[in-house]
């Protein structure tokens, strides 16, 4: 099957290229870049040197393919939706354009132009197989949720389903620098960013409505930029509203994720690796989830690679389902340790 990437020179685009070049069925036929048109993929993605002869294409020259992945800054995919619909049977968007159904939330976080996109959002199946696997099998348009939202939703939804969430949830999210894309600027300048613990989103983060929409809980986020390039970790503070024991929380998660190919439960009481952290997930499509608790508080922790499970990997996993392929196709890299 033929696949293309719009926004192929960005960080998400590069990760899509890596995954598609190693995919057993999907063949990468085009990756677009305005800056690098005509140059080999490795100009932007040095890890891909030697993987073939593909060069970047002008975004105006997209051929028709089976699957088109779009990894553009927000607003751009929506602006070209009509035209792109002609280009591929299956459209997978990684931007925020068609994630939010609530027009008020869309306007608050993405401006007035986002209100119309919210109206179009229900036509897109969320690219979250753990929650929407059946709908994805027949999807022709997919919108992949945000990276921190994915980590938070997967940690919180099973607790909500088990009646273990009472009131708001505090979601502390920590993120690496690749989450902001590859355009240089003062916040990402190395001397400023290298050792930072910058609480850049103390209140009101735009992933809050995504969490509400998919996990059914009101998340109050605080986001900190941490000294890492890749990786997201979420620490969610949940009040269960009643006594809850470890076994009950284990049951909630096991029930939700039994047989899930990319969710692992990590809640050990011994050793160095008791709770999820991103470093051993880099490059992998896993989302690790764990928890600890005391008498009236559950601390749920999840971790993933923002560019993989939080973006390109989640997109490929979803596209695999929509294309009738084995869900793990192209996504078997397990991550590295030490790292």
């Amino acid at each position: 099957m033929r696949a293309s990437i719009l926004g192929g020179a960005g960080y998400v685009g590069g990760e899509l290229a890596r995954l598609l070049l190693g995919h057993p069925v999907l063949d990468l036929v085009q990756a677009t870049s305005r800056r690098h048109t005509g140059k080999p993929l490795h100009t932007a993605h040095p890890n891909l040197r030697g993987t073939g002869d593909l060069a970047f294409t002008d975004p105006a020259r997209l051929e028709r393919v089976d699957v088109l992945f779009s990894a553009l800054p927000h607003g751009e995919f929506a602006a070209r939706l009509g035209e792109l619909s002609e280009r591929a049977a299956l459209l997978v968007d990684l931007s925020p354009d068609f994630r939010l159904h609530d027009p008020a939330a869309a306007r608050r976080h993405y401006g007035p132009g986002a209100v119309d996109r919210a109206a179009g959002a229900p036509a897109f199946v969320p690219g979250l197989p753990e929650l929407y696997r059946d709908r994805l099998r027949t999807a022709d348009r997919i919108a992949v949720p945000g990276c921190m939202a994915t980590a938070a939703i997967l940690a919180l939804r099973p607790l909500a389903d088990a009646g273990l969430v009472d009131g708001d949830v505090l979601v502390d999210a920590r993120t690496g620098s690749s989450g902001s894309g590859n355009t240089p600027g003062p916040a990402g300048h190395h001397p400023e960013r290298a050792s930072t613990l910058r609480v850049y989103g103390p209140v009101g983060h735009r992933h809050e409505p995504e969490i509400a929409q998919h996990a059914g809980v009101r998340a109050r986020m605080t986001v900190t930029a941490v000294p890492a390039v890749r990786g997201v970790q979420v620490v969610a503070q949940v009040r269960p509203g009643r006594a809850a024991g470890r076994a009950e929380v284990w049951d909630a998660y096991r029930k939700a994720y039994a047989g899930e190919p990319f969710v692992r439960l990590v809640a050990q009481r011994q050793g160095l690796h008791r709770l999820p952290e991103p470093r051993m997930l880099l490059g992998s499509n896993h989302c690790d989830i764990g928890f600890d608790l005391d008498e009236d508080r559950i601390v749920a922790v999840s971790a993933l690679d923002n560019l993989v499970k939080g973006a390109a990997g989640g997109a490929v996993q979803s596209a695999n389902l929509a294309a009738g392929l084995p869900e793990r196709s192209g996504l078997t890299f397990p991550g590295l340790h030490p790292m």
Partner: protein
Amino acid sequence: MSLDTLTERAACPDCGAGVDLAADTGVTEIVVCPGCTAELEVVAVGPLTLALAPEIEEDWGE
């Protein structure tokens, strides 16, 4: 463990999952819980009772 071996089942003290053990399992043996991968120690037999395996105390931080 093959299915036709005589087994006894005990509950994991951490996650509550059932842990199947050979009927001749002895006290102090260490098993890994299939539900949560905790290392468990057999602390009593008849009935089989499991506890989190003791760990060499390390300072895991701070």
